[in-house]
């Protein structure tokens, strides 16, 4: 009997954890997109007003944002400074290497890749409009991510618990 109770509790805990994890990833996606939007806004201001070269703008941006997103900007800044591959390829390489650390979906990641397309090759107007476009796209993604979290976040948590209880009832 004790084993049955213990097993049931474990099943409920495990299924709840899955539900909570899915909900957590939705919440984290919102946070990640918010961090990228803040980073790109800072980046745009630095490009517009600081007259710094791209590697310094990337490094500067990495200092004012959350660590999880800062790694994208810091590593890109370091590699651009080495001047071995183009800025565009560097950014794409860093996104490819690090995106799994975050909770972004494929569309979000495609937007990040898109940021790299015009990196370093354009005049300031082109740069600023490219960054603005990326920020706007991320804002749309943010609204969607928030809506998804509000709609499904709580549901996944409850669903995790309920499916655990259901499984216990069926098995017992």
């Amino acid at each position: 009997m004790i084993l049955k109770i213990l097993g049931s509790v474990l099943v409920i805990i495990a299924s709840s954890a899955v539900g909570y994890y899915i909900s957590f990833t939705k919440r984290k996606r919102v946070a990640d997109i918010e961090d990228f939007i803040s980073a790109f806004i800072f980046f745009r201001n630095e490009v517009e007003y600081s007259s710094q070269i791209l590697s310094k703008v990337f490094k500067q941006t990495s200092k004012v944002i959350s660590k999880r997103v800062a790694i994208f900007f810091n590593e890109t800044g370091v590699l651009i400074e080495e001047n071995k591959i183009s800025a565009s390829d560097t950014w794409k390489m860093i996104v490819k290497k690090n995106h799994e650390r975050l909770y972004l979906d494929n569309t979000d990641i495609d937007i990040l890749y898109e940021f790299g397309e015009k990196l370093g090759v354009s005049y300031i107007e082109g740069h600023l409009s490219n960054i603005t476009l990326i920020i706007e796209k991320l804002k749309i993604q943010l609204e969607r991510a928030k809506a998804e979290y509000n709609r499904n976040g709580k549901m996944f948590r409850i669903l995790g618990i309920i499916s655990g209880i259901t499984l216990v009832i069926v098995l017992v």
Partner: protein
Amino acid sequence: MNYECFNKEILCYLPDRVIEPIRMIDYSILNNIEEIRLRVNRPPMVNISGKDFILTQKGLCLPHDYENYIVDNIIIISSSDMRRCFDKVSKSSAFVFAEDINKGFITLEGGHRVGISGKVVTNNGIVKQLKEISGLNFRIAREIIGCSENCINEIIRNSIDIYNTLIVSPPQCGKTTLLRDITRVISSGYKKIEFEGVKVGLIDERGEIAACINGVPQNNIGLRTDVLDCCPKAIGMLMLLRSMSPRVIITDELGDKHDIDAILQIHNAGVRIIATVHGYDLEELKTKPYIKDIIASNVFERVLILDTGFKRGVLKSVIKTMEELIG
């Protein structure tokens, strides 16, 4: 320039395919390179002591031998080579160098200048963009300490004063190198002729003379020299006059009316001037708009004309009297 400097200041910016063949060139030859030219769909060219050579996988060859050269050894610069090279030169930050690019060049560490050619986009006669880059010309700057020794006597009036001097030379005859060394001597003094040295204001519009990085001159421009880096000449001369109380103002390549107006103001304020101008001789200068006016105004007491031969910075003649000058 030692090999390490050459590597750090020039080679690292070139396309990968060009770096190795240049490394194969003997250092004694490499040290005399004046220009490295890259043009899309054409072979890279190297100018050594005023003579052009084509760069191949196996070294250098003369342009007229090029047709007979083995095809395998030929290097042709592609559009992507050019793009990547421009990317390296602009540090992937074309937007930061936009003003320089629109003027047609970017200055590298060490004062080397990269000339740019491509498609120019203008608006109301003003260059708005230079895109589709089709040619880059790496002009290698050299600091030659002591190269002004032969002409400094002509410039110095007494132990604390100098003559207003105009240096006349066509491009690539060493006028910037000479001007840099004159700046050093006038600023630090010259014991040989008991010249004590005076405060110098240097307007380095293209960043070639002092080669400042983050505001710090990389070349030796003397103990008492204040530099306005990348500042338009006419504005810079008046700024220095008001703010730094120089005894001598030095600037490179006079050209337009604003420069001439500023020179007259500086002269009226009692500050000495040393400037350079493009030209072959005095007769030619007298045909140039604005320059002929400044010559007629008697501001310059000495005109140094440089030789156009292969040796750089060699004095051809000195004009000392007003009669000679005005003719």
